[in-house]
């Protein structure tokens, strides 16, 4: 530069504080960036750094760098840096922001990253209205990988994977992500800008700053799409590139405001502080177990299978039995059948109550089978070992169940429950009979289990009555097995 010129112009070269002075994280050439001459990233980086300076948020800022040429944004920005997987920057940004609500999270992505592989992540982050700022750099191509077609590639534009140019029939139309996101409720601010000349750069800077400021104010999701240049891949000079953006790209991606509701947006709430007593919140505060007395039998080892239709209270019966065992100071396990069975309307569970640690929670040879319907009886009848009990919810056993080595109590429990006040307590009548015939747990511990698990007074009363009825039924003389038909 000649002396004359220096006198005519003031050289205004400034480095934002949010940039490192020297790029120590680079392996070589630490005084310059890794970007090609004429690449838009340099200008855009500077805008972001300038906005960080102006807003006074350098210490609070966390930059999420993407995959693509700007993967190394952390070489330059003297802020907290997190580098994300391809397309996932909005998901990463979401959790960083939600974890550290005071931080200012800037997610920086290119068009391959954001509009292709990361299309789900950006859509949902925007739709949730995450309080983050997204800088979306669109140069209509995959640059770092060498110039393949992107969702944003223009019709007719050549790329290494559209050698004849993009065709709408083959690759679809250029994806206007900003317009798509603009259709959502949550985003507060979306604008597309260019960097083709000084006027555009000034406008782009206002947009970048606004997107970040919105977050500082807690307003919600903001995105600035910046039409950018890639002279290397486009095989143009920097000046030609800028002209191409202006003359060609802007026709497909018109500049302008796409969504603006900054004025109506309300600041996001900050999360409530943690409560003092975690155990109380988790429902695991220490509570005295009611241990009425030592269990009558010195060695208890009861294995029960409960089965019936969904809605008959099969699982609840098992749970109350297990809870009662625990109340009595015993080891217990409760294992539900789950999976397709659960969905097809039948249900069963395995319950073990033991004075010893329980090895397998699976009950394959139940001491007691509680069969609340006929299919369940047939399914498990043969598994009951000799001397075991079968409680069956009908007034008689089916003709084909002829075993004489079993104890059987066949009663229409559901009907009895109905007569007693509510058909839904049939399970509790059967539980009463079970406890009476096994003597495995004391009645007090059953009552305590009921009180722990049944919160409604009305149901507590109905269930208690049902349990007592079951006990009576079991005390009646046991008949020889009666068969139907």
């Amino acid at each position: 530069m000649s002396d004359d010129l220096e006198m005519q112009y003031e050289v205004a070269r400034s480095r934002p504080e949010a940039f490192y002075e020297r790029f120590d994280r680079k392996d070589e050439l630490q005084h310059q960036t890794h970007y090609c001459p004429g690449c838009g990233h340099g200008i855009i980086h500077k805008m972001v750094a300038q906005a960080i300076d102006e807003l006074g948020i350098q210490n609070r800022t966390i930059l999420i760098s993407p995959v693509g040429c700007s993967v190394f944004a952390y070489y330059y920005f003297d802020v907290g840096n997190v580098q994300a997987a391809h397309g996932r920057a909005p998901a990463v940004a979401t959790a960083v922001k939600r974890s550290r609500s005071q931080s200012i999270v800037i997610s920086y992505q290119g068009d391959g990253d954001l509009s292709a592989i990361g299309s789900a992540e950006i859509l949902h982050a925007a739709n949730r209205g995450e309080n983050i700022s997204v800088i979306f750099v669109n140069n209509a191509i995959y640059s770092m990988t060498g110039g393949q077609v992107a969702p944003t590639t223009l019709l007719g534009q050549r790329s290494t994977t559209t050698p004849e140019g993009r065709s709408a029939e083959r690759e679809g139309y250029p994806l206007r992500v900003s317009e798509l996101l603009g259709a959502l409720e949550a985003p507060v601010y979306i604008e597309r800008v260019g960097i083709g000349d000084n006027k555009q750069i000034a406008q782009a800077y206002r947009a970048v700053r606004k997107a970040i400021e919105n977050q500082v104010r807690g307003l919600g999701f903001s995105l600035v799409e910046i039409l950018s240049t890639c002279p290397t891949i486009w095989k143009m000079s920097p000046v030609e590139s800028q002209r191409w953006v202006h003359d060609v790209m802007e026709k497909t991606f018109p500049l302008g405001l796409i969504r603006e509701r900054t004025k109506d947006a309300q600041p996001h709430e900050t999360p409530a502080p943690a409560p003092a007593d975690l155990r109380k919140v988790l429902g695991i505060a220490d509570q005295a177990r009611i241990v009425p007395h030592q269990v009558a039998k010195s060695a208890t080892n009861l294995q029960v299978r409960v089965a019936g239709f969904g809605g008959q209270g099969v699982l609840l019966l098992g749970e109350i039995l297990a809870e009662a065992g625990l109340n009595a100071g015993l080891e217990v396990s409760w294992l539900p059948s789950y999976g397709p069975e659960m969905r097809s309307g039948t249900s069963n569970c395995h319950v073990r109550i033991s004075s010893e640690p329980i090895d397998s929670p699976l009950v394959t040879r139940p001491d007691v089978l509680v069969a609340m319907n006929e299919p369940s009886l047939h399914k498990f009848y043969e598994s009951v070992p000799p001397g075991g009990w079968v409680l069956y919810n009908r007034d008689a056993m089916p003709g084909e169940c002829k075993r004489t080595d079993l104890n059987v109590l066949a009663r229409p429990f559901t009907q009895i429950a109905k007569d007693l006040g509510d058909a839904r307590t049939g399970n509790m009548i059967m539980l009463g009979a079970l406890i009476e015939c096994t003597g495995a747990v004391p009645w007090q511990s059953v009552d305590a289990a009921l009180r722990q698990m049944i919160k409604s007074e009305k149901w507590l009363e109905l269930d208690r009555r049902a349990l007592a009825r079951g006990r009576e039924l079991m005390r009646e003389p046991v008949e020889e097995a009666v068969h139907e038909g």
Partner: protein
Amino acid sequence: MSRHLIKGNEAIVKAAVLAGCRGFYGYPITPASEITEAAAKYMPQVGGVFLQAESEVAAINMLYGASAAGVRVMTASSGPGISLMQEGISYMAGAELPCVVADITRAGPGLGNITSEQSDYHQVVKGGGHGNYRTLVLAPHSVQEMVDLTVLAFDLADRYRNPVVLMADGFIGQMMEPVEFPQAVTEPALPRWAVAGTEATRTNLISSIFLDNDKLEAHIRHLEAKYEMARRHETRAEELYTEDAEVVLVGYGIVARILKAVAAEARADGLRVGVLRPITLFPFPTADFVRIATRAKVFVVVEMSNGQMLEDVRLALNGTRPVEFLSRVGGNVPSHHEVLAFVQKQVQLSAQSEEVVHVG
């Protein structure tokens, strides 16, 4: 301390909260959904973050973000969802970010079904993602261990700066047993490497990229050194009747519970049967196998897979002892009687082969 009757899946969340976990990002899948539901209930009440992500891919990358910000964080899923998370798990291992992933396994391949298999072993224990990394894998076999190993998982994740997987089958997730919960940990200090949006953490960088070959090689050697340290210090296994066992049953998760019942019954019949239950699947308790093999005649591996852990048992024994295998798949569980019959057969065969030796 009182004991609480609780489902395995719910116990994980309560234990996680007590262990200082304050972030849960998940996606529903049977049979792990109760974990996500319990997290939705409790996380907001304890000042934590719960978010149901748009996919497992997003969920694991949210763990990446929360962990980068220095928060103890977890997710839960099952087979197909764990497959989708492998991308993020690889990135987290590469970037040395701690997290806990609960895998409540189901049957595959593809959609398979929602009942229990142990066929996630390869993708979880061997690392289903790309690159030279491992996850630490813990295999609970009771609801109490769902609590204890969840707490341990958070400690190991922080200590090794690496993802830790709690791999349980659907049975352990769905069953209820009484458990004691530990005291809540004092709030973990912010890790010095975290990026928390503060002046003190401003110069920190979380990344898994090493452009320079030598730097990446050094990084991978550094990761290996951590895994080697885990091998030396974190290997865990449970043994039952192994002092004089001739037949050693090997299994984890629900299978180990069945094996304990089988061993007790076989002992009652006078058979010298023991159980070796790996609690850590990586690091694998190789030394325990080698020690027990000095006395044992045969190892019987029982798995709800087509022989995935079996490979590690064979590697551990390195041909010194025969390894027999009983497999059930598709969601079927090996029954107590099935395993007992198999064991009896092995004892018989073992006795016959000895006779042959004597005759010779």
